[in-house]
């Protein structure tokens, strides 16, 4: 089974702290994604990566950065956490278009609270 894991299920941080959210997948997927999920807004794409060291901004990249040094690992970084970044963060991975099983596989999510 495909497995996508995230470093924490729940995280509480203070305003101004640097926050690292880590995602690891074990299926050798090329593409990885970070989403933010808020009630009534669905999933909004923060960043995605289609290869090691490659990244593309999504719809809401402001206040976030990412790192992909290894194929299986995709990190989301909040440089200086703010209260409006309190949210559920979901990581996902998939193969490129045209490969079978082209749906995204999701991690369990990290509920981040910024105080």
């Amino acid at each position, binding site marked *: 089974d495909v497995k996508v894991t995230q470093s924490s299920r729940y995280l509480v941080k203070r305003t101004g702290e640097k926050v690292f959210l880590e995602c690891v997948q074990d299926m050798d997927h090329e593409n990885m994604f970070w989403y933010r999920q808020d009630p009534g*807004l669905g999933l909004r794409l923060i960043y995605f990566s289609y290869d090691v060291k490659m990244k593309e901004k999504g719809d809401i990249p402001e206040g976030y950065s990412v790192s992909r040094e290894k194929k299986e690992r995709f990190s989301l970084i909040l440089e200086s956490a703010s209260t409006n970044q309190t949210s559920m963060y979901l990581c996902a991975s998939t193969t*490129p278009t045209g490969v079978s099983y082209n749906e995204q596989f999701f991690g369990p999510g990290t509920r981040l609270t910024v105080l």
Partner: protein
Amino acid sequence: AQTVTQSQPEMSVQEAETVTLSCTYDTSESDYYLFWYKQPPSRQMILVIRQEAYKQQNATENRFSVNFQKAAKSFSLKISDSQLGDAAMYFCAYRSPDLTGNQFYFGTGTSLTVIP
């Protein structure tokens, strides 16, 4: 960018009954992929069913089936014989075949309650 619309924020169904969740999308592409995902409370998002746009036949997975109307850009999910475990948030998603983009577009979700 493509948009995906789920017009029903909340739905409810009696156990053992059938419910249909609606989804529409906007695209100018002719080939694409559509998905329904389920997110149970405090649990991981999982795939329910998927449909390739070039396939005319509606996808079916056990009690879950879709009504794919390509011309109308509609992709509804039908859940038959609803069970308590079907209670969840359901998201409709669109994937572009664009090899460079590889982006998914999600609707805002429908929260399904199953009444015993």
